[in-house]
């Protein structure tokens, strides 16, 4: 779960990270009153969860009150990468002397948290990592002991030799680590961490992404999630016990297991089709769950046929077949369905599905070929 900038800022503030003065606004009027309160000029920043907001024209400076209203109006009617802009952060415009990047994330290879700093702040850090890796400095954090103070100091000295600034950066790094750990984040970053007039260090942006698996121990985050339309569908699926991700093709998929679901999509593509979705129905699948999964697949009007690919394993195929028939009684389906079942009692499953509209097969490749043929 990604937090919005204005939400992340609040957690930064709570732990003492200096952030630029600013408030969130949902209307041009609100934006104006914030601007009046904090003083012009201001920066208006769209609050959408995509990278590259600046490049997309979602960050603008307003010097006059008229400008604030005009720009707020413009930004609030924008759509960035398919996401409607609903909120703006109105922040005091500051004179930037120097920009740094500081962030914490999970490093899969070393199985540790990693502190990343760079003096190439204010730009996409992934681009920096790719094009000029020498500008990236990393410290892998001890999993048991956490980040040591001396490590934060070391990183700050790497960024600047200026003794008026480095200690402030070190302090911010330690506080950012606290944000990162206390929120069970996958990512907590400040980009840019700016040096402004008076040698003050200020977080001009705030980005926090929280581990979905850790939500059970973070009641303070409840209600902060602002899902997009697409994500609402994914959340609905999750509440019903399966995983659904919408794609752009016309072959609906219903599969047990994430790896097999990915592989099923791969095979559809390999044989010339396009998957309409990723759907992992999970382990124990009741007829009710299958019915609601099929219902969700067919909400997508592009879907011309469905492939159900179940590796029976411990569950018997005849039970799965009966469950499928029951599920199809519960939900109306107007597109052909190919069912691939394998596991114990395949013969019985074939028998059960014989005089039904379902097209049965026991081979994955054969099932994929059949469903691709159907949509041609």
């Amino acid at each position, binding site marked *: 779960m990604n937090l919005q900038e204005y939400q992340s800022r609040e957690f930064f503030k709570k732990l003492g990270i200096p952030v630029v003065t600013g408030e969130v606004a949902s209307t041009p009027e609100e934006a104006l009153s914030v601007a009046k309160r904090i003083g012009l000029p201001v920066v208006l920043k769209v609050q959408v969860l995509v990278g590259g907001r600046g490049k997309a024209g979602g960050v603008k400076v307003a010097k006059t009150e008229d400008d604030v209203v005009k720009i707020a109006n413009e930004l609030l009617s924008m759509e960035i990468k398919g996401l409607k802009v609903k909120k703006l952060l109105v922040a005091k415009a500051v004179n930037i002397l120097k920009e740094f990047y500081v962030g914490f994330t999970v490093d899969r290879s070393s199985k540790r948290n990693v502190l990343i700093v760079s003096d190439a702040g204010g730009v996409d850090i992934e681009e920096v990592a790719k094009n000029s890796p020498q500008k990236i400095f990393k410290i892998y954090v001890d999993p048991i002991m956490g980040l040591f103070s001396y490590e934060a100091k070391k990183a700050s000295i790497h960024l600047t030799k200026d003794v008026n600034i480095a200690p402030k950066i070190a302090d911010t790094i330690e506080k950012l680590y606290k944000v990162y750990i206390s929120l069970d984040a996958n990512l907590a970053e400040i980009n840019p961490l700016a040096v402004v007039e008076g040698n003050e260090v200020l977080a001009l942006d705030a980005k926090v992404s929280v581990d979905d698996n850790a939500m059970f121990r973070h009641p303070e985050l409840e209600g902060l999630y602002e899902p997009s339309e697409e994500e609402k569908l994914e959340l609905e699926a999750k509440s019903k016990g399966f995983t659904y991700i919408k794609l752009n093709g016309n072959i609906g998929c219903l599969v047990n297991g994430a790896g097999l679901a990915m592989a099923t999509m791969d095979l559809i593509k390999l044989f010339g089709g396009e998957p309409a979705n990723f759907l992992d129905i999970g382990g124990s699948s009741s007829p009710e769950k299958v019915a609601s999964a099929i219902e969700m697949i067919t909400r997508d009007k592009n879907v011309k046929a469905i492939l159900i690919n179940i590796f029976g394993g411990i569950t018997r195929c005849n039970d799965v077949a009966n469950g499928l028939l029951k599920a199809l009684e519960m939900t109306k389906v107007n597109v052909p369905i190919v069912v691939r079942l*394998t596991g114990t009692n395949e013969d019985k499953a074939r028998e059960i599905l014989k005089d039904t509209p379902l097209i049965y097969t026991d081979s994955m490749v054969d099932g994929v070929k059949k469903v691709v043929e159907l949509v041609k």
Partner: protein
Amino acid sequence: MSILVDENTKVIVQGITGRDGSFHAKAMLDYGTKVVGGVTPYKGGSDVYGIPVFDTVEEAVNKTSANATVIFVPAKFAEDAIYEAVNAGIKLIVTITEGIPVHSMIKAVEYVNMKGARLIGPNCPGIISVGKAKLGIMPGNIFKKGRVGVVSRSGTLTYEIVKHISDSGLGETTAVGIGGDPVIGMKFIDILKEFKNDPETEAVVLVGEIGGSDEEDAADFIEKEFNKPVVSFIAGRASPKGKRMGHAGAIVTPNTRTAEEKVAYLESKGIRVGKTPVEVAEILKEILGNGKK
């Protein structure tokens, strides 16, 4: 031979009184695994399918000399369950539980390593040494004793590939599901090191997917140090970038390779990659031939 577990492995099940724990404890027992006990706090003294239940892992180990555990406890309590197993002296910990926070795993994995134990998982199907022991949730009936070692980040996709290996007549030695999370215990390389020293394993199938760079690390290891042919399958060619495909770790980020790029990397290191699960078995057959050694 086989790797990590065999007919002498004494297994306990943590979370044995839960729905999944009890179901799979029975299935493991039926497969022939030495399931010597189970652990659920406050349920000590009872039994599940005749398997004695203990309150703590320590007690279970004292009474049964168990040396391996399979953890089914809910995600909230799984991190603690791992520490309990480590501190009771268990040396092989298989964690099936899905949904453990990554910060918990970072600590748990380090602790396990510090104490000289080994962890498989979490969010994995477990490990099976064919005909000897099953510590996990895979369907035992699809495996056939044979010549191929299997290591995978996935569950049902592994079963799909294993079925073809079994049908081809080659069969398997040990199959390990290492799990689909970003931070896991044993990785591809750790398992490959075990297969390297197993005389019965003549070839290895490595089932990978998008996300991270473990497949590439494994490919580097294979090129330099591995002594047996490896055939791979990589899932996620049709998956869009930036989307988490069910597994917490299955996501293409700006810093990781796409499925095609992973395949190209593996192939550049001399590893053949099947386009379909059945093709994996066909390639194996081509390499190993039909005859028994």
